């Protein structure tokens, strides 16, 4: 197996995730896209752990834990937005409009 087959797969997943973050309107879908990005990063960590030692796996585990926390807080925020705006449409959150 080549190193690059995993790395390229991870790169493709990452870009798809970025596309999702940019394009999706629904808050929950944006969070899902972020999960894609995080998983792509995790694949990288594991691939390089076969090179440089077990630490990569440890950090992948840390990332999984942090991602779980992130989803929890993220969904709580989405819920709050829903409660205040009756919608989770991110396009409508333009209070920062200049």
């Amino acid at each position, binding site marked *: 197996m080549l190193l690059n087959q995993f790395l390229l797969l991870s790169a493709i997943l990452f870009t798809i995730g*970025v596309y999702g973050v*940019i394009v*999706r309107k629904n808050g929950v879908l944006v969070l899902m896209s972020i999960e894609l990005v995080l998983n792509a990063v995790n694949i990288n960590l594991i691939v390089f752990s076969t090179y440089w030692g077990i630490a990569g796996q440890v950090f992948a585990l840390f990332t999984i834990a942090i991602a779980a926390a992130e989803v929890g807080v993220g969904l709580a925020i989405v819920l709050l937005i829903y409660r205040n705006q009756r919608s989770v449409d991110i*396009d409508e*959150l*333009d*209070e*920062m*409009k*200049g």
Partner: protein
Amino acid sequence: MWFFTHVWIIPALMALSFLLILFFGKKMPKKGAEIGIVFVGAAFVLALLTGGNWIAWSNDNPEGHGPAAEGAALANVDPSCSSVAAEAAAVGEGVEHVEGKTAASEPAAEEKGGHEEVATRPVVSCVNWFENGDQTISIGTLVDGQSVLLLIVVTLISLLVHVFSTDYVHGDRRYTHYFAFLSLFTASMLFFVLSENTLQMIVGWELVGVCSFALIGHWWEEKPNSDAALKAFLTNRVGDIGLLVGVIVLYFAAGKSFSILDLNILANEGGISHNLLLIGSLCLITAVMSKSGQFILHTWLPDAMAGPTPVSALIHAATMVVAGVYMVARLYPVFFEGLSISGSSVNALSMIGAITALFGAMLAFVQKDIKKVLAYSTVSQLGFMVTALGVGAWTAALFHLFTHAFFKACLFLGAGSLSHACHHSFNMVDDMGGLRKIMPKTFWTYLVATAALAGVFPLSGFWSKDEILAGTGSFPGTEGANGEYHVMLIMLLLAAFCTAAYMTRTIWYAFYGEYRGHGTPHESGPRITTPLIILASLGAIAGIVNLPAAFDFLPEGTQTRFEHYVEPVGLYFPAITHAGFNPVLALVSVAVGLAGIGLAYLYFFKNAFAGLHGLAERNKVAAFFKNILVNKYYFDWLYTTVIVGFVKGPLARAANWFSANVIDGLVNLVGKTAVGSGNWVYKNVDQKVVDGAVNGAGSSASGVGAMLRLTQTGRIQQYAALFFAAVAILAGVFVVVIG
């Protein structure tokens, strides 16, 4: 030795007591109080035995002096927790290895003062706490004179406060909970005092903070009490950051070691650069400022009086608030070298201490609440201790800590006894008066403690205060001090004057004149008066443990006992010198104290200076100054209104304004400039050069402006798109072009 290696039993006893009271207290006949008293009594006995053993251990010290002996004196240090100390001990054992070093440092040893001083033999034992990578963190006990002193003080005051509380908080709704927290506090304080490394110190430090929080808010149903508890906690958090940063700095400075002994030895022998020590000590001073109520972070301490009075006596007068002083004393080489205390005339520590001493004493004048007077007095006296440490008078600071614990605890408990009699009011101006005849025991003990605090000869406060004043080295004719701190001497003398005067004021309001409260006051019961009598007698006589060396008419071996047993000598302590007793200074300090008492006596008792009475009502200047004092120099106002208000309101608004005006303006400006330059191009280039290019240039320039305007849509995802596009471009530049 057995006592020194098993000293952990003392805090463990108190922790056990906490758990027992928590789980079984409610079922006991006395609701848990008896568990606390039995355990703290046992702890006190053990502490006394440890103290006795320490004296014996110091007396039959076979080592001589000199570097070799100083190294060998560290032989009782567990090598697994203090590698540097263990190394020094190993070097010390083989004297021939250190001959070169001996010759080099012999003069330093002689500088240490005329009388023969034998290296202290600290006993350090530890166990492995946890490991992280190759780093092993240990937890253990460090026994030397300083920790033994605090062991005895803490357990003694705690025992008396326990006894006092059985009457004072009798019938309270959370009686059991109260005693559980007293036990937990005592355990934490002892844990802190015995700390072997700085990490352990942080743990103890935070634990006492938590107990203080819980006990200040003991009656949390009333809003001011829970507010005071929160204030204490949050103010302390500010200083805790300093402690955390300081400990981390020192950890790396000492080559990744938390060990107090290692740190001290390295700091002492120049193993750590001066700048690191300076940064570390400044961070730690922040911690001292919050925990020991030093100026600008002192505001929590008077509010902490919302807790039950025995708690104020134990935590906010005698023990917890001296944690900061203790920490400085523990890591003294760090401060001594970092602040260049020796041979200097000003430094951060002494300045903060002196300001606190003076300003705290002045604030005590305008308080109506007797406990607040005592709280500001505590702030002021802690200032004395911190100044003493700042000027190099280490022993004087610890000695003052020792004596202050007795008379201040006595004053607080006395105030508790007064309020017990006057329907739980602390307002001495409106609700007390004339209690001299009704409560003779409280009156006399209070009077003795006041005289001790004011520094009346020959009570204990006189000796310790005099040592601090001499330690500033500023008074002409004082020999042997570490520097010449003139400003500090003046401020401390003024503070001493104020102290004597405001204490006389409380005596007048509480015990003389007519009774102004309602109901009939009565003398408190024996469980309240006995602790008062014990503390007052200790406050009166504690001075004899450190009579000046100059008193050579006394039998050999009765002077400076405190210094001899408490102050460490050796590699882990700087070579400080001791200011000699100066009879003129002693006279001056007594005179200042008596002048304070006398003036206040004339003013209040004899109604002298009639013109001054009610001055604040008539004179605008006086009213102005009184207002400043009544509002505590507006510090609380500064914190709550100005700082918090600023962060809450204007800062948030400013950020909003900034993003609305500046950033948008910038974007608009870019757009306008682009349009403007387009126009310029149109007018100049276009007319003169190619006509066809004109329209393109102009419209593209205005298009750029419009596009930049478009970027400020407020749509997060567009920002994300821009962000990732920028990442792609930059990464492309780095990878393709540069790499």
